[in-house]
């Protein structure tokens, strides 16, 4: 009995103690309750889908209603809200590149979708400035690749001097089987696909034919500081400089990369004054890479090589000693040419000049071969040299023609030449003009075109043709030899232009109204991006 009473008393006392303690507890907290503003992103009646499928470089416009405490504030700049549209990779992955593109900072989205093909989330983030509270709208966005054939430009970025980027113009002049409604233009393609432009200023852009049937040929971009390959559809980089080689050289100093035969399926590189070749004749597995450094007793090689020699692994020019060298197929020795006939147009072993600009063009009328056309300079003198590098190793008439064009207008400062394939003329750009030199008729060129502004300088002129003759003969290249592309640069406005005209393939007469594009940089080279389309 006593025990029971004792326990009961203990329990009672305990409970009393606890309750007294709690009842004496003062709430010492200091809370400040703030009523938050209510932000709602309302898509009702805005025509906004929950998921989108767009082509790369399509333009997307969306505008949901932004409600702040029930009031629409899309057009109210005083609303204390910040807006940000982003596009980011939807799938989490431990490999590959995760994309996060910022598309805009307004309630409405009005932007090009330039990221590579893939699955993404499109997100609008509305942030209340006072509290930092964020409200989101998330949509699915599938991007489809849409880059095929067209006219490529490699230009020095106006906004990032010293770097290069890629543009692609797609219209009925340069791509088959499209309508005007399907015409597109793409700019800064390389950086859009690789997060940054290419270091260096433009030298060459080229999609060479080495695996025509497989469709794997990349686009090669050469600048003054780098050499890269990109996927021809996405423009994502697939090869750095070192990836071109079986064993990369210690010094990275490429100055030329090109083909060495319209049908020979070889490419070669000039790097650190040595020549490297790669043979695409064998498409067996294991890849094709540049081989050993090949040198000879030559001086400094020019940043030039023949793209159209049918019988050589490479043709290069020793500008120190004024002689051409070649690498005969299946050999490893770079040698001068045989002693030339005194009746040759000029002696390729004794050229008293350096190369100012170059192109390939008409041969003897044979559609399967081409000659090299070189604007040469010696002091104030200028010459047009025409050479045929298609002969065998014993050829003694490599030099076809040597024309003194010193007095041709603007030739001193010519920046670019293009040689006709179906006529006997070259066009060259100088100042704000393009000149037409009918070299077999007169050493004095005539004005063919003048830029609309005196401040525009012609930086690149190219006829629409392709070194791989099959492309022209089979009608794969649209409008072969009948379109001329003229690129200009205005230093004061820091704006480039591309003018595309119809041209008479036999005479070089430019006619009609141009297609005009604004280029975000200074064009260094242009070329047709081949795609097998019949």
């Amino acid at each position, binding site marked *: 009995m006593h025990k029971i009473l004792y326990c009961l008393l203990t329990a009672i006392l305990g409970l009393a103690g606890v309750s007294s303690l709690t009842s004496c507890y003062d709430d010492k907290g200091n809370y400040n309750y703030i009523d938050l503003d209510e932000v709602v992103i309302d898509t009702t009646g805005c025509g906004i889908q929950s998921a989108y499928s767009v082509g790369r470089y399509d333009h997307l416009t969306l505008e949901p209603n932004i409600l702040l405490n029930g009031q629409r504030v899309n057009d109210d700049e005083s609303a204390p809200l910040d807006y940000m549209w982003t596009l980011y990779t939807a799938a989490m992955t431990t490999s590959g590149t995760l994309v996060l593109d910022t598309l805009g900072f307004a309630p409405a989205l009005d932007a090009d979708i330039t990221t590579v093909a893939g699955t993404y989330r499109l997100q609008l983030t509305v942030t209340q400035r006072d509290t930092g509270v964020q409200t989101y709208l998330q949509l699915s966005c599938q991007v489809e690749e849409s880059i095929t054939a067209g006219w490529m430009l490699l230009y020095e970025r106006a906004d990032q001097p010293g770097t290069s980027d890629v543009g692609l113009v797609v219209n009925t002049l340069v791509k088959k089987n499209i309508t005007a409604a399907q015409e597109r233009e793409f700019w800064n393609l390389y950086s859009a696909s690789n997060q940054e432009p290419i270091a260096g200023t433009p030298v060459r852009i080229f999609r060479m034919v080495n695996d025509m049937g497989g469709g794997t040929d990349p686009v090669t971009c050469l600048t003054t500081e780098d050499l890269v390959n990109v996927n021809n559809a996405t423009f994502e980089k697939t090869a750095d400089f070192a990836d071109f080689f*079986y064993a990369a050289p210690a010094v990275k100093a490429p100055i030329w990369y090109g083909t060495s035969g319209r049908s020979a399926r070889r490419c070669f590189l000039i790097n650190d004054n040595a020549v490297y070749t790669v*043979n695409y004749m*064998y498409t*067996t*597995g*294991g*890849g*094709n*890479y540049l*081989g*050993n450094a*090949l040198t000879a007793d030559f001086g400094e090689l020019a940043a030039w090589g023949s793209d159209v020699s049918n019988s050589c692994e490479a043709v290069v020019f020793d500008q120190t000693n004024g002689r051409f060298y070649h690498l005969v197929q299946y*050999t*490893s*020795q770079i040698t001068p040419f045989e002693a030339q006939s005194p009746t040759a147009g000029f002696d390729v072993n004794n050229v008293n000049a350096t190369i100012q600009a170059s192109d390939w063009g008409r041969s003897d009328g044979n559609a399967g071969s081409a000659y090299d056309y070189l604007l040469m300079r010696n002091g104030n003198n200028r010459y047009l040299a025409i050479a045929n590098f298609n002969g065998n190793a014993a050829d003694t008439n490599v030099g076809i023609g040597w024309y003194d064009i010193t007095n041709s207008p603007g030739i001193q400062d010519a920046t670019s030449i293009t040689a006709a394939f179906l006529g006997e003329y070259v066009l060259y750009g100088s100042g704000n003009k393009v000149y037409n030199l009918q070299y077999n008729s007169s050493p004095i060129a005539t004005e063919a075109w003048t830029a609309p502004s005196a401040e525009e300088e012609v930086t690149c002129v190219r006829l629409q043709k392709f070194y791989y003759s099959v492309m022209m003969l089979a009608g794969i290249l649209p409008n072969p030899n009948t379109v001329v592309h003229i690129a200009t640069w205005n230093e004061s406005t820091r704006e480039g232009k591309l003018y595309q005209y119809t041209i008479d393939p036999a005479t070089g007469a430019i006619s009609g109204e141009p297609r005009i594009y604004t280029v975000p940089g200074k064009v260094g080279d242009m070329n047709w991006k081949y795609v097998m389309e019949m």
Partner: protein
Amino acid sequence: MLFVLSVLGLSSCEDNETPVYDVSRTALNLWFGSEIYPVDSLTYNYSYAMEESSVTFYARVSGLPADHDRTFTLEMVDGSAEAEGSYRTETYTIPAGEILAEFPIYFNTTLLQDPESFTTTDGYLCFRLAPNNEFETGAEEYSELIVRLRNYLAKPDNWDSADNPYLSLSYVFGAYSREKYQFMIDVLGIMEFAINGNATVPYDEENNELSLNYANYLLQTLQLALEEYNATHDEPLRDSSGALVTF
């Protein structure tokens, strides 16, 4: 009871003499193989090199590192007389503060007294540490360097023909000669390889297989090496019949 236990405890404590390492003794252990996996001997094949090449041995100090460089030499204590003059050793140095290093023993094919030596029967050489003031001979199992000598080269089975998808070596490298193959091994550092028409990489090191394009790259490498060889020797490279070696 307590008194008994304490007496027993005291009597069990004695000082023993602890042996210490004799720091005055320094020996040198020698072996072929890798740093941690020694082998009993090594084989050197004169046919794998046009001129001079080498084998590598390890030397580890059994003792303390020193504050100065320590040198040693080898002496050939037993071996095939025919090898005389075709090999050389050096004065080797264990740098101050170090206890382990690798060193070469050189062999030169062109200095064989008889070019036919060891073509049918193997020879051997046995090296030991030459007496010196710095090191004593190491443990017995690390006291000798035995090199077995050979001088024969077999024509690869796949030189003239190969089953699809493989290609014969002659398809890329031309007609066989012992001297050509020896030159290839010397320049390329690979032998008994195959050319696989279905290769997925340029050189499959595990299977010793080349892609056709890589084989052509090696062909170019050999062409350049042969040009240099011929330019730097009194006589261009010829095979046993006297014909010029070409690629």
